[in-house]
């Protein structure tokens, strides 16, 4: 499957370039909102909505936004959509709003969204950017739901708030606490690494071209080889 085909763009966010488990972006909401399945699912859908909308708008405006001030422009666009989503959640799902608290507003600075704007939407057409946002959003939601399922079932003996019979005395309370979150997160990353056999694109697909710190980084030698390859091409 080519990375450039529409289906490829949509699917790569789910496993191969899963934003949380392979790109290791957006770890803060991942650890904080996965103590229960409902909160994690709500967080995933909220981020997905913002991601699709911001990706599309940024892609539309990519020729207008000046290169030097693109980050503030992206942030303003993302913050606008986050505000809309936050108001909708507040109005229609007050319980979810209370559960997510500050993390809903913090979607603004979620690196998945800014990362996709920088890595993808700023360089590709509107349709492709929407698909990329959708795929990454689904990948984010799936990762959160998987993590929260493990944490809620083991740590709280319930699933989506419904208690599981006979599990109550056997719950492992650490799973709903911060160390348990780190533990499950690490094990899930390891699992995805095994599934993709470590072939997940780590460095190659994010070349130094367009990276704001490329100037400093090439001198240090970390990205050197790739830049040279690109210049040769």
């Amino acid at each position: 499957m080519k990375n450039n085909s529409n289906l490829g763009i949509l699917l790569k966010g789910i496993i191969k370039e899963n934003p949380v488990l392979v790109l290791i972006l957006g770890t803060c909401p991942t650890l904080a909102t996965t103590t229960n399945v409902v909160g994690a699912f709500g967080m995933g859908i909220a981020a997905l909505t913002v991601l699709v909308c911001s990706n599309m708008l940024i892609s539309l405006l990519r020729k207008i936004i000046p290169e030097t001030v693109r980050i503030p422009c992206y942030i303003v666009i993302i913050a606008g959509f986050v505000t809309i989503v936050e108001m909708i959640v507040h109005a229609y799902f007050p319980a979810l709003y209370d559960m997510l608290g500050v993390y809903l507003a913090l979607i603004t600075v979620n690196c998945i969204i800014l990362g996709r704007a920088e890595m993808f939407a700023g360089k590709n057409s509107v349709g492709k950017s929407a698909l990329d946002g959708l795929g990454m959003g689904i990948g984010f939601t799936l990762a959160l739901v998987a993590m929260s399922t493990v944490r809620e079932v083991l740590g709280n003996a319930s699933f989506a708030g419904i208690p599981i019979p006979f599990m109550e005395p056997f719950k492992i309370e650490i799973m709903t606490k911060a160390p348990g979150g780190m533990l499950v997160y690490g094990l899930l990353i390891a699992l995805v690494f095994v599934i993709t056999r470590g072939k997940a694109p780590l460095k190659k697909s994010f070349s130094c071209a367009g990276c704001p710190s490329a100037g400093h980084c090439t001198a240090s030698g970390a990205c050197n080889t790739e830049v040279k390859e690109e210049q040769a091409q």
Partner: protein
Amino acid sequence: MSNQVKLAVSPHIHSGNSTRRIMLDVLIALLPTTIAGAIIFGWKSLIIIAACVASCVGFEALFNLITKRRQTVGDLSAAVTGLLLALNLPVVEQNLGITIFQCVIGSLFAIIVVKFLFGGIGCNVVNPAIAARVFMLIAFGSMAKVGLPVVVDTVSSATPLSVETAEQLPSIMDLFLGLRGGAIGEVCVLALLIGFVYLLVRKVITWHIPVVFIGTVFVASLFMEGFDVMMALTMTLSGGLFLGAIFMATDYVTSPSTAWGKIIFAFGAGMITFLIRYFGTYPEGVSFAILLMNILNPYIDSWTRHKILVAGGKKA
């Protein structure tokens, strides 16, 4: 075929030391403590010990089998981990099935997460038994309680670290013999000292870590208690200090290999224990102290490494 000459590469003579022999020595050294624990806390302690040892050995065998590694159960390190974990657990009032379940989860964490995910024996960053003990302390609210001895009445059995008034404190003799509350293996100081002497005689461990560790806590407590020797002695004999200092902090993999390194390591662990006991929210800090110093171990080891002299007296 009888006149065939066998060729072997050097070394041709070795001391007969092996992981298996060392681990067997540790198991023998832990025997008095295990027996004392069983007498003080009753038959339930034996079930906890059996559950921990069996599941640790089982997980090690299973993991080696699944990942097609060389079978390492024979080196007895998993048995030592299981026994040490069990000796660090209290016998608490709860359904025995749940206790066994918690032991199995703790062993799973010790062997799979702490030991094998970091590369197996010799590669673990922290002591598996200590890490699993801390994991269980945080994971299961019931495991944070203090186990009470069955052989004495409960008045004198509260752990000295969590009582408020001086009248409730057990006597020094009770502390030394282990007639107090606590984990299975930490209470009987006499039995732990017998194990310490055995390990010293067999040259499995050196004196540095246990003596400096316990000495640091004693001296720091002495200052804190206004030079009240009895009170400082009570603090030193309480909690899991002797078990931790003799058996947990001396683990080869996670403690420094040079004498000075060991002294720094033990002093740090002693100070952290003292600070947690007097100023922290947990009554006992030995496990956390050893865990923290385990993490610092590579740095201590590299600071105190012997300078190798090459020709001309230059330092390599």
